[in-house]
């Protein structure tokens, strides 16, 4: 029998914020249709992008690793809708959803996966290092937990400058066993920094079940032990994530110090796109597809009067946008080899041929 989120040791203690969730549930009777439709659109775009990337990988257009967030779109959309364009986010290796939800351009993202000169990083980063500083996306990161201190530092600089911008820091449940998690949360609390820590708890640390390698009750308890309040949420319920995050962002922006959002979700695909994830039973994955955040959002919208045709159109638009991004990416030029020598460092007087 697969573990449900409620069985998992990572489930945090209930606190006052649970009331917010209850309120969100009650509000289902009267949802903000345009806002929820916005989530549906954002999640559909993330899904379409990743499905297209997955296919492009199979077709040989992508060489490097691609980590899909299929099944986790509710967290990215529910959190980022509450951030201003100028607010910052840091991400991990599974960052497509966060990046798109923060407002990045799908075409430049796909071009980056295709290692093209028109990609966000001119082909130097790939899937794991997409960044869009124009929308405050400070970078996906290939080292688990490494985005945590960076987020903390960005928030520290904001506080130092008297800037009201905040930072949302996305990481997975695997990251809580790395030192930067402990150090970063401690630091954020000590300096009362404007950080929203977002633990996307998908139950897996790469290909190992996180609970098998995690002592104690898990992410929320660790955060609270450092004085950072934890709010649990069903990460596959985008409306709940949105409602809870709105409250947390208000507290963070209001000078209330760091907050911790523990969003339980599920990674419907393997650790990387190439990982068949045979370490988990097919029945477990099948069951989780029934909890797909996009399907749940669609059902909610249908309940509130949106027609199947309208909802299908959102999906079709997203698929078309991703297809266009693929076409643009394939048509885009590869980076000139000279790009390899740019943006390394300015202070380098080594002449050509030496110090290479």
């Amino acid at each position: 029998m697969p573990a449900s989120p409620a069985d998992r040791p990572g489930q945090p203690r209930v606190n006052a914020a649970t009331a917010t969730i209850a309120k969100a549930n009650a509000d289902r009777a009267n949802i903000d249709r345009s806002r929820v439709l916005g989530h549906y659109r954002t999640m559909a775009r993330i899904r379409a992008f990743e499905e297209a990337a997955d296919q492009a990988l199979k077709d040989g257009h992508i060489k490097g690793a691609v980590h899909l967030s299929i099944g986790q779109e509710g967290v990215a959309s529910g959190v980022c809708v509450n951030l201003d364009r100028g607010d910052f986010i840091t991400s991990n290796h599974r960052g497509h959803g966060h990046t798109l939800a923060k407002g990045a351009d799908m075409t430049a993202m796909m071009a980056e996966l295709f290692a093209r000169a028109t990609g966000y990083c001119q082909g130097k980063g790939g899937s794991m290092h997409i960044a869009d500083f124009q929308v405050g996306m400070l970078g996906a990161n290939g080292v688990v937990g490494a985005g945590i201190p960076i987020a903390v530092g960005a928030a520290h600089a904001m506080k130092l400058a008297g800037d009201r911008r905040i930072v949302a820091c996305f990481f997975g449940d695997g990251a809580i066993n790395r030192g930067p998690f402990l150090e970063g949360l401690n630091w954020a609390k000590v300096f009362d920094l404007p950080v929203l820590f977002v633990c996307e708890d998908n139950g897996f640390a790469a290909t190992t079940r996180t609970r098998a390698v995690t002592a104690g009750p898990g992410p929320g308890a660790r955060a609270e032990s450092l004085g950072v309040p934890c709010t649990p949420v069903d990460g596959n319920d985008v409306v709940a994530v949105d409602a809870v995050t709105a409250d947390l962002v208000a507290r963070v922006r209001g000078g209330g110090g760091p907050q911790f959002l523990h969003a339980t979700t599920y990674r419907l695909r393997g650790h990387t796109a190439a990982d068949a994830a045979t370490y988990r039973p097919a029945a477990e994955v099948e069951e989780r597809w029934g909890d797909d955040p996009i399907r749940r959002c669609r059902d909610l919208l249908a309940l509130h009067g949106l027609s199947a045709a309208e909802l299908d159109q959102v999906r079709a638009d997203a698929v078309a946008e991703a297809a266009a991004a693929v076409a643009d990416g394939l048509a885009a030029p590869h980076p000139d080899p000279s790009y390899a020598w740019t943006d390394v460092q300015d202070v380098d007087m080594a002449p050509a041929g030496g110090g290479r």
Partner: protein
Amino acid sequence: MTELTYLDAGRTALAEEMRRDGRVWALGEDLGRGGVFGQYRGLVDEFGPARIADTPISEATIMGAAVGAALVGSRPVVEMRFSDFALCAVDELVNQAAKARYMFGGQGRVPLVVRQPIGMWRSSAAQHSQSLEAWYAHIPGLVVVAPATPADNYGLLKSAIRCDDPVVYMEHKDLWPAVGHVPVDAEGGLVPLGHGRLVQAGSDLTIVTWSRMVDVAMAAAALPDVPSIEVIDLRTLWPWDRAMVLDSVARTGRCLVVHEAVQAGGFGGEIAATVGEELFGRLKAPVRRLGAPRIPVAYAPVLEETSRITAAQVADAARRMV
């Protein structure tokens, strides 16, 4: 000109840069009380605890936070206390600070300075004595600086703080009390990164060195029966002043690299190889290196001494090359 210690020269440089640029701030352990060696003494009184920030003993986050703070527009000066402790923050320095600009296609810069004192000092044993400059010179994206004099500690630190690249700034603990003339000038007095210093001209042999070993090389040159030695202080290990070194060795025909760090895998190998590649036909003797044996630095002075490069050893090596 002002007479300052190496330590006070660095402190003066930081204070001036913090006055000049409100984006500059310092973070690290115990800075409020002046830092472990006093390099930050009194600065909190002028700049306050927000800009001279006492942090938890969390090297990884000190460095990682500095990366994040730099990416969004501030200019952090990071204190690691000892080069050895900076090893707790290698991911943040090597994988993050050195890579962010490149990986993100030039969207962000990481203008941080990480001060990590190096060298043997007062029986500090194996975890407080290392000279790890070669590690960072090996990493694309990092600038590596190792000042040898008070004037250079002043002028190079100011340049490092103004640099838009991440700079590994390695002061030598044994040099803190060294006194010298410093051209204190809030807007001038900068020493450019990447340029060596001709410490002494000579005709028979070029010694290439940096940091504390500059004094040792000069002491060796003054010993009896030593050939005419040209001494070059690299000051910056990356980028290093190839032109100055190659020009000098082309004239003298001999090159000896001296460093306090372990010889095996040290930066001396890079210099020796470059000189060999570029000047093979003009060398009058094989290029030699003089560095520490590949043993951890011990506590007992008599054992510690086995790791130390002395003026007598340098002089002996020079004599045997000519």
